[in-house]
């Protein structure tokens, strides 16, 4: 390690010898030089932990273009590289695919709050399907236990720990509302997050700079930040992955619910719906007149959360009775 590493914190240049300076210029110049060298060396030592990180970030990753600017070949190369990285880091064989929106599709979700009993199976299914960090028990869904007779979230409780359903309570799962006017995508300074044609708000985890402005902007607590590298045992990693969805996220970027697009863009249902044992969840394409979601929207008195904010969610709630 030499003083050449990193920008110097102290003076690096010394006075040219012929420059007239104050008393005893040569001694002063020499001292300045020593000070500068020591300062630079100390700085290099101070930031030396970064060397470990620099080794783990490849040049390809550093220079990778924005998702929308990758051509087919580049995309293929990126997906291969990411698969390699998971293998290297987690020891798991996975397949990462790029899923484009299906033309003529606009996804929407509805939850029947009369049926939901707060058993939390959706929370758990999301955790497993989407390769969340095991240590923090992360999930894109939070379930509020609400006292009957109020819609005031301030009276809700997300940390209930008793058998469900409790008397005089109802349960309201909240996840990304896939807004038609998403405040989170507007605020992103680098266009790392956007609303796709089928209504799903996605994140390019390899473009996000981790400023967390979107997390501040979201009115539904839908976004999560990777405060550290996710820890998942190899055998628990879900190998069916999408670039914009459930692939293992890097440290320091934001993620969110993507309606399991690696499943739903292939005609399947989201993991949270498949796991739900009460039948409270309804998902589908609202452009399809025969879909169940269309029937719910046309026949039930549905409502959205925080309608007054004008975010226009694609996520609806209703009561049966």
């Amino acid at each position, binding site marked *: 390690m030499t003083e050449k590493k990193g920008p110097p914190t102290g003076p690096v240049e010394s006075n040219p010898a012929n420059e007239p300076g104050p008393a005893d210029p040569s001694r002063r110049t020499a001292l300045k030089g020593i000070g500068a060298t020591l300062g630079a060396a*100390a700085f290099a030592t101070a930031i030396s*932990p970064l060397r470990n990180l620099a080794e783990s970030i490849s040049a390809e990753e550093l220079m990778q273009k924005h998702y929308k600017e990758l051509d087919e070949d580049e995309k293929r190369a990126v997906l291969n590289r990411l698969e390699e990285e998971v293998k290297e880091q987690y020891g798991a064989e996975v397949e990462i695919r790029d899923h484009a929106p299906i033309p003529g599709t606009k996804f929407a979700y509805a939850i029947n709050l009369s049926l939901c009993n707060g058993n939390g199976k959706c929370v758990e299914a999301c955790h497993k399907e989407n390769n969340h960090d095991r240590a923090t028990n992360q999930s894109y869904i939070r379930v509020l236990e609400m006292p009957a007779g109020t819609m005031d979230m301030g009276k809700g409780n997300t940390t209930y720990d008793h058998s469900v359903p409790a008397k005089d309570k109802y349960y309201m799962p909240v996840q990304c509302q896939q807004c038609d006017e998403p405040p989170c995508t507007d605020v992103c300074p680098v266009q790392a997050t956007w609303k796709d044609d089928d209504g799903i708000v996605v994140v390019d985890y390899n473009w*996000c*700079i981790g400023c967390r402005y979107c997390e501040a902007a979201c009115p539904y607590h839908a976004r999560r930040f990777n405060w550290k590298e996710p820890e998942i045992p190899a055998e628990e990693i879900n190998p069916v992955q999408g670039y914009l969805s459930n692939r293992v996220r890097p*440290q320091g970027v934001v993620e969110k619910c993507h309606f399991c697009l690696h499943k739903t863009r292939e005609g399947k249902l989201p993991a949270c719906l498949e796991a739900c044992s009460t039948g409270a969840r309804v998902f589908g394409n609202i452009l399809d007149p025969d879909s169940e979601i269309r029937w719910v929207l046309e026949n039930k008195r549905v409502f959205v959360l925080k309608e007054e904010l004008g975010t226009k969610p694609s996520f609806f709630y209703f009561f049966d009775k």
Partner: protein
Amino acid sequence: MSNEVSATERQHWLSYPKFLVRAFSVATDGPFSFYAWMTALTAVTLVGANAWANQVTQGMITTGMTDHVSWGLYIANFTFMVGVAAGGVMMVIPAYLYHDKKMHDVVILGELLAIAAIVMCLLFVTVDLGRPDRFWHLIPGIGKFNFPVSMLTWDVIVLNIYLLLNLHVCGYLLYMRFRGEEPNPRWYVPFVLLSIVWAISIHTVTAFLYSGLGGRPLWNSALLAPRFLASAFVSGPAFIIITMFAMHKFAGLALPAGPIRTLVKIIRVVILINLLMLVSEVFTEFYSGGAHTDSARYLFLGLHGYNQLVPWMWTAVGLNLAAAFLFLHRKAMDSAPLLITGCVFAFLGIWIEKGMGLIIPGFIPSTLHEIVEYSPSLIEWKVSAGIWAFGLMVLTVALKIALPILAGRTEEFLPASSKSAIVRNRVGE
């Protein structure tokens, strides 16, 4: 004619590097106390750099932030420093709009403070990034700049231009002194006037970062930008007054009584406006009530037994009230201890009020009305202290270069013999 132009150009090619070398030499020469001060600041900066390196490597789990409170001490300091940077040019308004000649030299002081403050702002934003390695995504043209939709891109633009404006004005004026020439107003007055507008813009845009978020009731207030400006025009001048007294004590600067008087007059009015706006926010929040009041209630009174910020906020209110009282006291103009105490109180009070007192309660309760409290981790304190130390180093170096001019000791900056030698050489060519 063309010969003349090229001769002047050549002259600049030679004299500008010379100027930088001299400036560098002036900035790094000083008594023992100067070296001790710079060494201490370097040490704190290094501790901060090391803490940041660890944060980047291990992840931001090392901070006290969570998905519930996703911004903390860094963004709080950033917001406050934007105010100091904007407040720095408050000196400029009386000097140029009212042609107060006495202010002219002191103006440079405010602009140098602005430079140091902006450098700190940029660092505070950078250390808050989860992926600083992808910083280039933010560079217009190379990255993918979400302009004009994202207010953060506006902030990136106005902060950097403000930095350049101040660098240009200070650099030009000092360089002209170095060449022993009278500065040409055409080359700096338009920029000075622009920097006044720009100072207001940086703080307005920074307020819009927060006030534009509909999901955060505490921030979603039209009064936020005016409040930011009012507090900035207290904290900036307060810091300048403290700096002048420090330079008087440690660097032999003759106290500029006139400009200090002007600054106190500014603070006297603005500190009351700031308090008025605080009262009117508090009234609207509490009198109307409802769930929208929860963040304000958490900040001032505590919510459901959570009250970590309450003592902080009341300290800020107390400091601001005490500062207002001190500034309005008729002796404030004549008594240095009174004045300095007032400045320190105002600076600290606003640091709390517009820093942690604004950012943290915006997240508490969360958008799903959960309450998760926040306190900065040791790493966050270290990184923040490091940036403050670095900012003070930038300021010290800048002042060191400007001081000979402010104190009328240009010969220290520019040894007469070498200067005439340069000129003789030029003429000889």
